[in-house]
């Protein structure tokens, strides 16, 4: 089990939850667990063909999964996974 941190803009789709316990052996499985628990978040993370949207940034600990193995990045359990939103307010 790992903890996935949800940014404020997306908490509307996770019943207001800031941190969600997710399970899976890699990022793809973790995201699948997330969208099973909270289906409403799906279109905000994935495009119509099921790929991760380019502006979605996921970090395992301090590292961007794009610098690791993408959605195949392995998860041992216990990691902190952070979803980083595009926000533009000033």
């Amino acid at each position, binding site marked *: 089990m790992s903890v996935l941190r949800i940014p404020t803009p997306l908490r509307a789709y996770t019943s207001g939850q800031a941190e969600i316990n997710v399970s899976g052996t890699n990022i793809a499985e973790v995201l699948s667990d997330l969208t099973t628990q909270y289906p409403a978040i799906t279109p905000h993370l994935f495009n119509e063909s099921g790929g991760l949207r380019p502006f979605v940034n996921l970090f395992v600990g301090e590292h*961007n999964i794009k610098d690791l193995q993408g959605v195949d990045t392995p998860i041992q359990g216990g990691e902190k996974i952070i979803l980083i939103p595009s926000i533009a307010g*000033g």
Partner: protein
Amino acid sequence: MGPELNHEEILRYSRHLLIPEVGLEGQRKLKNSSALIVGTGGLGSPVSLYLAAAGVGRIGLVDYDVVDSSNLQRQIIHGTSTIGKLKVESAKAKLLDLNPDIQVEVYNEPYTSDNALRIAKDYDIILDGTDNFPTRYLTNDVAVFLGKPNVYASIFRFDGQVSVFHAKEGPCYRCLFPEPPPPGLVPSCAEGGVLGILPGTIGTLQATEALKVLLGIGDPLIGRLLLYNALDMSFDFVQLKKNPKCRVCGPNADIKELIDYEEFCGVPGHDHGDEGSAGAGWDITALELAERVKINHLKLLDVREPHELEISALPDAVNIPLGQLASRLSELDTADDMVVFCKGGTRSARALELLTSAGFKKIKNLKGGINAWAKEVDPKLPVY
């Protein structure tokens, strides 16, 4: 090192001169330095105040907006006495009152592909305090092309981000965000709100980074992104790497000049209070709606969040927040004549797209939202 300090300046900056990392040399460096602040709003307020107070010799302010009372919950450089005045002039007066020894240059114009390089080229650093995606991508690309650091901060509701994007030494904004989110997916502060203190916290961090870069001290946030959440009171840091496929700073960059950023992002380069339109033929004005409801029955669909109904509401309107609309379509009838509304017309325009694609045809968008209704039809309702 920069010009000498006179006795008055030595007294003014004495608390800086006492810090060995700044000292007389650093303070002279600041006096000789310049910073361009794009946006004189929530972030631009603390940023410009602190950089002026710190003695940054030349400060440029870009903004074309005027001060509105809804700004004052967070834009502390402005005041009730400057409502209706140009933001850059309101800010300039405050900065020169705080520190008359500095120069403040104002650009009362939108920051666009036509003027951005000309404005930014004479400044040492650029601070991104804008409120929309097109201007953020523009600010980044200008900084990359001019080889200047882009001290970045961004806010929404309780979340803040800070980094220093400096393509010569690390990643740029596009390395992290190659593409903007699709229009409408991420609400603006005018639509979604922002905690008034948040730009204070984040803008102060942004100003700190700018000062460190100008002084050449410490460990600036190059290659790191700070993530702040005020509700959780959490500070997280993540590492950012240069993206080898980056289209502006990568080895095979194909964007060599400024582009049309509004087209790239699909949204306008400003965040003007949630005033949206569904386009020709789909809008109904508040006055037209007031006439229509006298003649025949219309179903009113309010797509705002439930807590907004406590501020203002229309009787008999059905409330389904935009985020729930797709999963609650069964509560609506395609046979009904329906008018959709929100605060200002942006969310309802999005709701209209969703409804038309689901087969609803007899629908209209209330242009200007319930705020337009309050202004034009029922002044008993507040505008927010």
